[in-house]
């Protein structure tokens, strides 16, 4: 009540200009409220210092909750991309290795074809060359049936069964298995076995080797010589898929760096939203301690005064 306030109730003696009477209950109540409030403030400050969080529950900063949610979702998405990328990388590595191996198999077949086309060879030596080619053909088929874990790398979507049968027939498909390595960026985790090894890519690699073998067995030098062109086409075909695997691998690997960058950036944003600024909260706590000490002092003086009376 301010003195002379016309709207205020009259003083105890009916005079408006009396100062407000301050009773012991008022003093006591004031001290009590201040103590409780200082205590609560210290509690909150201590909580923030010990948890290190300024946004522990939504009411700490409601306007920041939606922002934090979207940062958390983006982080989770990046991290799930990390797993996909690691899997794709391993499969592409394996595919690239298998295709490199297939390239050397074809190089060896080319050497054999050159040898077999030589007029100095006889039927017997060509037969033994044919046997070597048969081995190369088996090797080629097993390379084309390469697995990583349980996944047949060159079968397209048909990952469960070997895509090439014993006679070289392709039973896979042309499916591209994509994974998300970064939000919105997808990379194929496989290269096409159809394009690498079958006529779909230009020439049937298994058939080229089979024909070379039968030509050698038939002791037909001219036919063997004619296979050289086919072998060159097959080599280029396998190589082009190997290059494709390599470039996909590069994309996955560069996505790793971009992802790491994004994660660092988002973690910083998240920390800005969620984590308490240490100097600030320590200062807050010191202030809260101080105000509690003052409130305690005031309370004890109020009690002393009452006792003195």
């Amino acid at each position, binding site marked *: 009540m301010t003195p002379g306030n016309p709207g205020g109730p009259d003083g105890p003696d009916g005079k408006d200009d009396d100062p407000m009477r301050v*009773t012991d*209950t008022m003093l006591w109540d004031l001290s009590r409220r201040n103590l409780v409030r200082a205590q609560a403030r210290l509690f909150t400050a201590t909580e923030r210092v010990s948890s290190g969080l300024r946004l522990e529950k939504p009411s700490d900063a409601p306007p920041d909750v939606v922002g934090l949610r979207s940062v958390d979702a983006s982080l989770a998405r990046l991290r799930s991309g990390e797993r*996909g990328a690691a899997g794709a990388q391993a499969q592409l590595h394996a595919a690239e290795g298998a295709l490199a191996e297939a390239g050397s198999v074809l190089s060896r077949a080319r050497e054999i074809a050159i040898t077999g086309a030589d007029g100095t060879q006889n039927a017997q030596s060509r037969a033994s060359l044919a046997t070597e080619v048969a081995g190369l053909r088996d090797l080629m088929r097993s390379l084309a049936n390469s697995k990583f874990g349980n996944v047949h790398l060159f079968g397209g979507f048909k990952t469960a069964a070997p895509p090439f049968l014993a006679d070289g027939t392709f039973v896979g498909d042309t499916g591209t298995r994509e994974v998300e390595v970064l939000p919105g960026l997808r990379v194929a985790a496989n290269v096409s076995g159809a394009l690498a090894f079958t006529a779909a890519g230009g020439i049937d690699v298994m058939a080229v080797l089979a024909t070379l073998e039968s030509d050698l067995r038939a002791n037909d030098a001219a036919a063997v010589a004619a296979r050289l062109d086919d072998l060159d086409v097959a080599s280029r075909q396998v190589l082009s898929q190997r290059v494709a695997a390599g470039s996909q691998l590069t994309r996955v690997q560069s996505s790793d760096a971009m992802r790491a960058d994004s994660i660092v950036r988002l973690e910083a944003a998240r920390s800005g939203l969620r984590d308490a600024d240490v100097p600030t909260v320590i200062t807050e706590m010191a202030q809260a301690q101080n105000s509690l000490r003052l409130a305690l002092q005031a309370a004890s003086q109020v009690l002393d005064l009452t006792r003195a009376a």
Partner: protein
Amino acid sequence: MLIPGMPTGLLDLLHTPQRGLGASQAGLATVAHNIANAATPGFTRRELMLGPLDPLRGVDATGHRRSVDRHLGGQIVGQSARDAYARAREPWLSEVESIVGDLGPDGLGAVLDGLFGSFRGLAASPDDPAARQETLARADDLAAHMRRVAAQLGDLAGTADRRLREEVAGVNDLLGEVARLNRDIRVAEASGGDAGDLRDLRERAVRTLGERVGMRALDDGRGGVIVLVGGWRVVQDDGAEALVAVPDPGTGFARIEIAGPLSADVTRDLGGVMGAHVNLRDTEVPSRMTTLDSLAWDIATSLNARHAAGFGLDGLGGRNLFTPPAGVAGAAAALTVDAAVAQDPDALAAALDPSGVPGDGRNALELADLEDEDLALGGTATLSEALGLLQAQAGQAARQGHASAQREGDRLAQLDALRDSISGVDVQEQLMWMSRYQRAYEASARVIATLDEMLDTLVNLR
């Protein structure tokens, strides 16, 4: 010169200081009463009213004055109701917040992110039983979380309802007490007695009543108090109505009605603690539940549509991921992984083409991409944003509840201080009154001694 009626003889004159002694004694008794009640809540300080007894016959204690401001009393009843409402509401809102507002790795948000992440894992290796199991587990996690949050919100509303019913008996006691005090005060004051302590008691009862039901109290101008709940007179003179909790088959919760022939529904008119219970039960929980339900509905329907467009390892399509909810209301509480999928992870539709199994994970990628689509809140927000909004709303409500509890408490403290300033006991002041009465007593005694000496002089005159 003689004034008619003034004491004439010395013996007659002795009555004047005797009345002074009596007045001082009454003063001391008043001081003692005030000091004894200095810490009694709601006590109103007494002031002894003294008046001269003419002609020259000394002093007379005419009675006691209670120092009160009636207008302020009404304000305090209203404010303490608002304070009680805000204080009872604050912990409710914090509980709602803690149910929906977990921002950590076990919260709804992390679980939702986990499901979308598992779709990407499934897309990367749709032929891997472990990836299928993982997706299934994450979907189940999300459904279980939604169900748990819905159940906890429902339990909270149930608790509020129970607490509301429990208030009724106490409130009826208070209504009866106010009516009884109305009668006692009228009886005491009709016979010219002092009903000050009874008035203090009634003031406290009315205030407590305000804290419980937030009603209005009016002065009937004849020493009685009228109590109004939702415009109905529940206390008038010495008659009191009773409140009763009537089960509402529609909601399963209780309606608060005025018992007897009135049988008026006052549930929406309640304030104070009961009002806070009603607010949680009928407003806060339902509004969070509505948001949660529409989120669950959007999750189930949009993921189902996408999932049904894909194919499982068996080459079959058209299956749901979640059991289709019957409607938006209750969608969160009913969210479960569809039985066909739950029993067979191979039924998860990772493939976009039935001929693409087992390596085709394109539909799983499509499912994962739903994360970016505005599927919630009528196509204006992503599922994740809608969830964030729900959490922010709960946080905002808790924050506002805390602030209003503090604000109303401050206002009440101000009014209480004002009331105390007018009606409370200042011990120092009482001690000064005490010395003053003591001095007056001594002075009156001195007058008697002087008169005695004068009588002595007169008697020994010879």
